[in-house]
């Protein structure tokens, strides 16, 4: 296989797949007694995360409604988690020995398990504290009072592309009831899209499908720019992320030199087979997978100084690209392996 160059696009996978599988290499090394390589789980303020958090800070400050969209794997949930950490819940002591939980940012995630409005109500209520087993109507009434008590300033719905129309209507009803009690929280819907056009995402399509609903929402959404797409990582931002990883992994990988591969990685990750939407930006999730696969391979093979190779990064990027097209077969005689070791 030819050595990759900085600007070369990912070639077609060779017959029989790419190089050695990092997964198999790590499993075999673990069977031989080597400790597994576990990637660090630390927040990195990437360019994408900073942009998204800046937008959410704006919404938090102004109390307006937004629909923020991004590609899957850009790091929306991670950025939201960090944003919540910056506005963490606290306890406000009362005069009679009680303490009230103050939740500035009330966030929940809509998934396949939260398809009904009642489930959304329950999910929001759970974020405020333990809730008794009372009926749905009583829970809705309780939630309004609880949001007022918790002094919520912002409601964030993650994975909002799975919202249903009934749930959207409930959000509107909830904010109306809060408004009557003098509370006007901002609402941010975080949705994933698969094209460069943010208005193609599900919540917006649900809104505009019904003219009456669209009209009701339009009054609440931020006037000129209600739907915003947050761009992924540029080449320079990829370089900064790689440099951060170099520092973080320095104790275990003393000879790590990732930043020099920023251009190549950006090129490989924005290949048309990875970047199907043609955004021209790298995604944090894919970048982490490639780098961690290469580090895992270097760790498993116990190279001097755990130094990785540019070829490892290329192989990992290639594996990521052809993922799903070619499935490696794990066929190793572990008994023989253990006897040999």
């Amino acid at each position: 296989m030819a050595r990759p160059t900085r600007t070369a696009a990912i070639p077609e996978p060779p017959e029989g797949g790419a190089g050695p599988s990092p997964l198999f290499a790590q499993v075999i090394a673990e069977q031989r007694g080597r400790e597994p390589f576990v990637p660090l789980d630390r927040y990195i303020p990437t360019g994408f995360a900073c942009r998204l958090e800046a937008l959410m800070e704006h919404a938090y400050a102004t109390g307006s409604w937004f629909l923020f969209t991004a590609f899957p794997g850009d790091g929306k949930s991670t950025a939201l988690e960090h944003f919540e950490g910056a506005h963490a819940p606290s306890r406000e002591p009362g005069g009679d020995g009680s303490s009230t939980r103050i939740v500035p940012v009330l966030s929940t995630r809509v998934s396949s398990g939260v398809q009904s409005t009642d489930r959304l109500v329950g999910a929001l209520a759970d974020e405020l504290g333990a809730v008794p087993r009372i009926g749905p109507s009583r829970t809705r009434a309780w939630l309004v009072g609880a949001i007022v008590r918790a002094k919520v300033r912002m409601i964030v719905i993650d994975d909002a592309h799975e919202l249903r129309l009934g749930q959207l209507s409930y959000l509107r009803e909830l904010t109306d009831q809060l408004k009557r009690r003098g509370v006007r929280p901002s609402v941010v819907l975080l949705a994933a899209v698969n094209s460069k056009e943010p208005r193609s995402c599900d919540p917006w399509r649900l809104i505009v499908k019904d003219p009456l609903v669209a009209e009701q929402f339009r009054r609440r959404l931020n006037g000129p720019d209600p739907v915003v797409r947050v761009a992924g990582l540029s080449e320079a931002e990829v370089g900064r992320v790689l440099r951060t990883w170099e520092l973080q992994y320095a104790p275990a990988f003393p000879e790590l030199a990732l930043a020099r591969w920023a251009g190549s990685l950006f090129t490989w990750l924005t290949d048309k087979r990875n970047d199907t939407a043609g955004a021209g930006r790298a995604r944090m999730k894919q970048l982490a997978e490639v780098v961690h696969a290469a580090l895992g391979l270097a760790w498993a093979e116990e190279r001097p100084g755990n130094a990785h190779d540019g070829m490892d990064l290329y192989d990992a990027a290639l594996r990521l690209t052809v993922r799903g097209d070619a499935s490696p077969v794990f066929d190793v005689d572990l008994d023989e392996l253990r006897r040999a070791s």
Partner: protein
Amino acid sequence: MTAWPALQVAVTPRRDEFMPGLMLRDDEKNDFPPGGTASIVRRHDASTSQLGKSSLGILGTLFDREGLASLNGLEPGAVTALTWRAELERVFGPGVAASRLGLKRRLSICPACVRPPLRLIRRQTALPLMHGCEVHGIWLRTACVCGAPIEPFGRVVDRRDPEGRLIAPFHCQSCGRPWESLPRQPLGPRDELRQRRVAHAYQVVLGRGGPDVIENARRVLALDEGGRWDHGWCLSDDAALAERAMEARHVKSISAVVANLVLREIPPERVLERPREGPHPDLLCRNAECPTYGTSGAIRVSSERSNGTESYCAECGSRFLGERTILSYDLGNASGDLSRLTVLHAQARLADYAARLAEAATFLAYTDRSAEVDHVFHAAGVPQASHLRARRLGLVGLVARRLGRPVRGQNSSDRRDRHPDLVADGFADRWSFPRFAVAALPTEAGPPARRDRHASEAAERAGRHPRPESTGSRR
């Protein structure tokens, strides 16, 4: 334990607060219906009907106590301190049932204690026999004015009053009336005094009692029991106290201990005293003629009295109350507490006992070969008092020899009757002999001979009661 997320509004337990009260305050602060918090921490095997029981907070078994603590951000053991679990487990051991505290049919509340913002249900109100609030001096309420019992949690969570409004915590589950608006009836002086005594007794028994407190209470109550039953101590104007009056051996629960202590006006601290093993070191035999004079070797404790410990000497039979000699059978006892006449009367009484015992033993030796010394004392009508069995008095030895039993501390070859003249010739007039043994009863000790059958039948036909052949007057 289930790790629950904290409640939105967490409350801190107050001093002496009862666990259901804490849950109701949680409900009120968090805008839950009554029982909302209970429904979160209720164990899966607890039914809703059990939530209405008055004993639900005694041990807190129905609820995840550590879960309730985590709901309020408390230490794991903080909620257990709001129940009576620790105290009951100290007395009865782990796995104790709430009934060991005693039965209280309904939850009681003090209308003054539950007023906002205090909202306090005291732990003491859960105790049986507690009918008044110690702080406010008013009767506790067990029912609303509408007649419905006071229940902390409704069996239906979203309950509404007759006007359709949701019933809030600290309100009647039937009519929705606030508990603080219930009538406040002051305790009378006697009731207040009795409540103080009950509270003090609980404080001592539950707060300081150990695993032996029930046994100690039975012992203390039993010592007091002899005279009390005769003098009607169980008559009380407090029905709850009166219905718990019982004999010491039936006492099993804490409330029964407390009720009997209060009824008999016994200081509750007495149940904390351990029973004394062996004679008190200050108790000595004070009979100068006794071989154990000045020592405690033969001293035995017989009972506890209000003015001292009563003891006796197992050697000479003298009785002492504290350091005072109250009875002796020896004129040279050297005690200034006893007159000569008293000793002479005691000696005469002893002689009478000896004669009656000798007769009864002689009789039972012929008729009942399995008779024991106790039977003879009973048949002779002699008190079975411990001091009468003292060695030097010789009553037990006399009976044992007549029965042919070995005598403790005596050579087995020396079975000679030292008092052959104690039994008069005609003693059998006072005893009822079986018919077949009439003719053959010998004058000396020995088995009676079998009578001729024909002679016996002839005597029955004549209608005469069988008598021994030799008769005479009693000495």
